[in-house]
């Protein structure tokens, strides 16, 4: 038997390890995005507190920066990480074909069906390579919402030099409102996302180790 093993042809080598569920670039950009969003949201709350749009302020203890000037420094530093990392994510996602493979097709019917199945606890998560329709629409929403955050943020940062963009949002105060609402939507997404990860912990492992 031992001779047989020795003379085994190359084809009998241990099988090639399967491709990771989440490729390395995706895991890196995901966690960099977590860091960027955390800094942007918590410093953004402090900036909001300087001149609230609505009748409330965020508790200073959960904000970053210590004062308006400090929060602005964090916000305008982390914006580069958020935007450049997001750009890398979008470019590789598009170029590799992963975006169309993983996120499409997505239909209203499919989303409704999967959403009802999820509510009845009957949505299978057996194949982490496959995003169900609710996941597809949720992740696409997060991506588009981040694009909206960057665009409205640019309009607030440069209302004169990027006047056309500011006009698109209905002027400076319009851009502030859109920026705030997009932040709220992103925080809502994160809340649901974290609960779902807690319910299906395996997805956390695949986002860290890829498997």
């Amino acid at each position, binding site marked *: 038997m031992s001779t047989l093993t020795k003379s085994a042809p190359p084809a009998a080598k241990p099988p090639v390890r399967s491709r990771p569920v989440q490729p390395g670039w995706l895991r890196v950009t995901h966690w960099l995005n*977590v*860091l960027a969003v*955390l*800094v942007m949201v*918590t410093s953004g709350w402090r*900036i*909001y507190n*300087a*001149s609230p*749009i609505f009748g409330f302020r965020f508790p*200073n*203890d*959960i*904000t*970053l*920066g*210590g*004062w*308006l*000037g*400090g929060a*602005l*420094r*964090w916000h*305008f*530093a982390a914006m*580069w990480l958020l935007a450049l990392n997001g750009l890398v994510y979008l470019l590789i996602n598009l170029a590799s074909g992963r975006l169309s493979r993983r996120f499409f097709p997505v239909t209203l019917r499919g989303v409704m069906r999967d959403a009802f199945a999820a509510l009845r606890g009957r949505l299978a998560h057996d194949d982490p390579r496959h995003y169900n329709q609710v996941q597809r629409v949720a992740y696409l929403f997060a991506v588009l919402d981040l694009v909206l955050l960057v665009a409205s943020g640019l309009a607030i*940062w*440069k*209302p*004169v*030099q990027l*006047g056309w963009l500011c006009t698109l949002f209905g002027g*400076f*105060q319009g851009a*502030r409102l859109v920026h705030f609402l997009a932040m709220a939507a992103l925080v809502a997404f994160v809340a649901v996302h974290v609960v779902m990860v807690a319910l299906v912990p395996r997805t956390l492992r695949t986002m860290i180790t890829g498997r």
Partner: protein
Amino acid sequence: MSPVVRDGEAILHEARALMTRRVTEPSRRAFLARTLSLGGVALLSGCSLDDNASVESALDKMSRWNDRVQAALFRQDVLAPTFPESSITRPFPFNAFYSMDEAPVVEEADYQLELSGLIADKAPWRLDALRNFASPRAAQQITRHVCVEGWSAIGRWGGVTFSDFLRRIGADTTARYVGFKCADDYYTSIDMPTALHPQTLLALTYDGQTLPREYGFPMKLRIPTKLGYKNPKHIRAIFVTNTYPGGYWEDQGYNWFGGS
């Protein structure tokens, strides 16, 4: 006004400025302690309070980088939007690092605008000379004042285009900075391209009236392409330099370029 009283006022201003800085500093120091409570951010550098200085220095570098990006984005031919008279915010908000009743009282009789640095004709200007210079070149604008805090207000300022004044005094327009010292001990500085922007205005009036005390009597620099803290009021001295002059808020952490 006797010199003794004027000294007393200067001391008060000085103390007020120092106090303001003291009041803001502890909160700046506390910021990293709060950072630490945010688990995710703690991943940044395994932060401890000792890293405060290195975090601050990294944020400083990013702010300088943002200065350069904004200078590159800035275009002299891009104008800030202007508005009809009906959209003027009334009353226009008062904003400073002190309350309205603490706004400096500048006596027209005593007032002189001092000039220094890379300027050919450094002779000081009395207010009536400034008015005489401005009236044949009168410029006005109804533009949006955007505060770093997020609020904004539309106002009407009149005066003379700042670049006209800089050319009249023989300022070296190839220099990097124009700095301002104010009667309330405020100080700030701007980049030369912005100083030469066609909408940058040496403002002597507000809404058709002599610039009132609360909006910066006897004159302010109105820059619709910059945030409010880059629009100095009660200007008493202007200088042109290649040495970075900083500013009252900028030295505490606000971004220097502060462009919009």
